[in-house]
């Protein structure tokens, strides 16, 4: 067995002993790149003492092979040419650390995602692989022994959004003993689910299954609920976030209000005049109100835009009289702020229903009988504006109802994607409406997407109840001639091969799901991305659906993509689990790619000081100094330093120059 050669410092003097491994990745790489040729080409590169090819480098035997070679051949640097470093850089760093050398004496070459998977010509792909391997071999000679930075994880968690996703995540975390801040911008938690009547496919009453969870949240010692609140600023990094939360005034002292609601009855307004937000404007509320009876917290709030006391200062304030010694009403309340420290964040901000007014051809807002699905949920609901009776705006009961699918979905004029839940909720509404009215119901669909557990059976049941299914997208909704008050739905029935014109009393538009209108602003606060339709982007659509590219920030629910309640709850549990994994591990290791100043070379010009977005650079004794805890490793100061005095671990100038020379070397 050959003696391992003496360790070198890797500064370019002496030649560290380099091992190169070229992976087949089954046929993923090998079908487009001549792996054997790449392995041979690597053999003759300066510093390379051995070069191997192997079927699956990331496998256990693959990693063992590296460790053995380190021991048996005295390897001091390792280069693996395989997939993206995002997948296996960690794997190989850990392997070589096990093998006895510093984990940062490693360089990975991406010849799969960036080469074999995107090119067709074998000669070109192999030449590219050779160039990239050569670059890595040249670079790795200059790698320094580094240590990962360990950062502790604060066990507290912030959950943004109090819908079913946020509620479930919060409960899971709280039950695991963690302190949770649940921030919700509406006056009550519950989200959209609180507005539904029954949920598909079981026809469970939404309130019946949601309110117990809401109560659990309220009573849980580990959960702090902040309603009427927004996150305005997030600083820091994984494990160490500082979050600033703004609380908008209710004008009610939460601790004092017992939710008796007598102030609402006592209000000088005898009737509600303002469109009720929870009932989507189908009923009116007073200036003092509670969003819905089971609100959590069970606390009223005052709307300063419509309350007479705010507008004129001269109200009798009967509300205060009736509140008596509880004294819960406080007109002087102002906006307040809280700053909390948390280690991880779950973003569960939900969705916004598509605005049907954007498609005037369906008559929403123009003809009285046209409603959105969410409005119909409120009509059907026993605690809704009509106490569960199906009564149109003009007082009539509908005899014929048309439900139009895909409003704002599967439509290149608005949203190309399918909103996933509308087929099921349309069937559900058909069932509920028929139960309540005995009306003839027509469902106009493009496809019936009933892919979940029990969903197909649900559709068959609704079909058997006599709901007419017409496969054709309605093109037009127009008023019937003769002043009947009905509207005609015109659609091509593609199964019957004819155009249908069906007059109905009521139209239900199955509006799709969109991201919240302020998603772009919210994502900037958390440093995450929006993609595909404006929803928050997950780290990987298959293997990492609840994490983001910002460590410590997780996603749950419809804010990530349209989905129904079962999937939302599953995802919320997953997000909580990933946060728990982080917390219970106790620390996270950060890449040691910080910048540092070589003081002798610093001229004190101060160019770098203003460049750092994290304020990591200060001036001490006339020289720049970088705080390695604050430094995130972007390298901007490194590129800007006129003297070249600032350097970056893992991304030294020499290392990059070696890569440049490596990829361009003539062979």
């Amino acid at each position, binding site marked *: 067995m050959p003696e391992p050669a003496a360790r070198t410092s890797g500064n370019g003097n002496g030649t560290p002993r380099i091992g190169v491994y070229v992976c087949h990745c089954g046929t993923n790489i090998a079908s487009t790149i001549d792996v054997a040729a790449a392995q041979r080409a690597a053999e003759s590169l300066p510093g390379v003492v051995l070069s191997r090819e192997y079927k699956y480098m990331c496998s256990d035997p693959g990693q063992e092979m590296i460790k053995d070679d380190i021991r048996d051949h005295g390897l001091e640097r390792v280069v693996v040419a395989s997939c*993206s*470093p*995002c997948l296996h850089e960690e794997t190989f760093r850990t392997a070589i650390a096990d093998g006895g050398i510093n984990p940062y004496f490693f360089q990975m070459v*991406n010849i*799969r*995602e*960036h*080469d074999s*998977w*995107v*090119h*067709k*010509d074998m000669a*070109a*792909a192999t*030449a*590219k692989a050779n*160039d*990239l391997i050569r*670059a890595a071999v040249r670079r790795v000679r200059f790698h320094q022994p580094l240590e990962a930075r360990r950062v502790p994880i604060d066990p507290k968690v912030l959950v943004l959004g109090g819908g079913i996703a946020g509620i479930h995540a919060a409960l899971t975390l709280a039950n695991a003993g963690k302190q949770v801040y649940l921030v919700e911008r509406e006056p009550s938690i519950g989200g959209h689910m609180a507005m539904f009547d029954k949920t598909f496919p079981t026809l469970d009453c939404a309130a019946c299954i949601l309110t117990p969870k809401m109560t659990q949240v309220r009573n849980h010692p580990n959960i702090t609920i902040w309603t009427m609140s927004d996150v305005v600023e997030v600083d820091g990094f994984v494990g160490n976030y500082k979050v600033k939360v703004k609380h908008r005034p209710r004008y009610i002292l939460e601790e004092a209000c017992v939710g008796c609601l007598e102030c609402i009855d006592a209000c000088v307004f005898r009737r509600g005049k303002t469109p009720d937000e929870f009932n989507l404007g189908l009923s009116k509320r007073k200036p003092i109100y509670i969003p819905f009876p089971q609100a959590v917290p069970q606390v009223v709030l005052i709307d300063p835009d419509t309350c007479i006391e705010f507008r004129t200062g001269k109200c009798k304030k009967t509300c205060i009289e009736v509140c008596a010694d509880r004294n819960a009403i406080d007109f002087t309340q102002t906006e307040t702020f809280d700053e909390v420290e948390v280690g991880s964040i779950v973003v569960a901000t939900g969705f916004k229903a598509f605005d049907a007014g954007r498609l005037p051809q369906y008559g929403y807002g123009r003809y009285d009988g046209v409603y959105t699905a969410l409005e119909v949920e409120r009509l059907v609901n026993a605690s809704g504006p009509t106490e569960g009776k199906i009564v149109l705006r003009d007082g009539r009961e509908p005899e014929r109802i048309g439900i139009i699918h895909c409003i704002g979905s599967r439509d290149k004029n608005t949203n190309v994607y399918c909103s996933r839940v509308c087929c099921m909720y349309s069937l559900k509404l058909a069932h509920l409406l028929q139960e309540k009215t005995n009306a003839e119901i027509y469902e106009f669909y493009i496809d019936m997407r009933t892919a979940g557990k029990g969903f197909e059976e649900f559709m068959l049941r609704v079909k058997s109840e006599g709901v007419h299914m017409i496969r054709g997208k309605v093109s037009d909704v127009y008023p019937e001639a003769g002043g009947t008050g009905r509207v005609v739905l015109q659609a091509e029935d593609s199964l019957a091969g004819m155009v249908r014109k069906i007059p109905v009393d009521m139209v239900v538009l199955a509006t799709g799901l969109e991201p919240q209108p302020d998603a772009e602003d919210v994502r*900037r606060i958390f*440093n995450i*991305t929006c*993609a*595909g339709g404006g929803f928050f*982007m997950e780290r990987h659509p298959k293997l990492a659906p609840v994490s983001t*590219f*910002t460590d410590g920030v997780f996603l749950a629910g419809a804010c990530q993509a349209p989905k129904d309640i079962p999937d939302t709850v599953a995802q919320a549990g997953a997000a909580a689990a990933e946060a728990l994994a982080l917390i219970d591990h106790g620390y996270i290791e950060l890449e040691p*790619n910080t910048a540092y100043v070589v003081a002798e070379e610093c001229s004190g010009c101060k160019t770098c000081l203003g*460049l750092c*977005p*994290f304020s990591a650079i200060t001036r001490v004794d006339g020289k720049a100094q970088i705080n390695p805890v604050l430094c*995130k*490793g*972007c*390298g*901007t100061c*490194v*590129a*800007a330093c006129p003297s070249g005095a600032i350097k*970056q671990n893992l*991304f030294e*100038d020499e290392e*990059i*120059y070696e*890569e*440049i*020379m490596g*990829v*361009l070397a*003539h062979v």
Partner: protein
Amino acid sequence: MSETHDAGQQVDGFEPRIVAFFCNWCTYLAADLAGTSRMKYAPNARVIRVMCSGRVDPQFVMEALAQGADGVLIGGCHPGDCHYQSGNYKALRRYHLLRRMLTDLGVEEKRIRLEWISAAEADKLRDVMNEMVAEIRALGPAHLEVPDESFEELEEVTV
């Protein structure tokens, strides 16, 4: 413009050599996504990973040209989306200045390109790659490579 450059002639069978500096959080991931989506594009570019487009020193671009690159592509996050807040703005400033300087030196504008490509924009990455290769193929070789001997002379003077 072609009368000012010998490099303008179309050389038969010329394949441009392009060096690409991609930021780790956006463009590098977009390239990964293009791979997992099995998109296909021209094989002329060689990617060098940096943490942020703000790390790209104009000297890297010069070095690449001096080493024989026919074009340089810098890929970063969209303005407002930089993982490190503002690194991409610095990259943009340097890029404008660098381009002006290179144009004064007779290097065609289209040889250096800065693109904002987010992690979801694999299709943009493919299109930029193909476009850039076609444009530089039409421009011809850059002929900016400094022969090794000149580097040695330089070393003797500076070291």
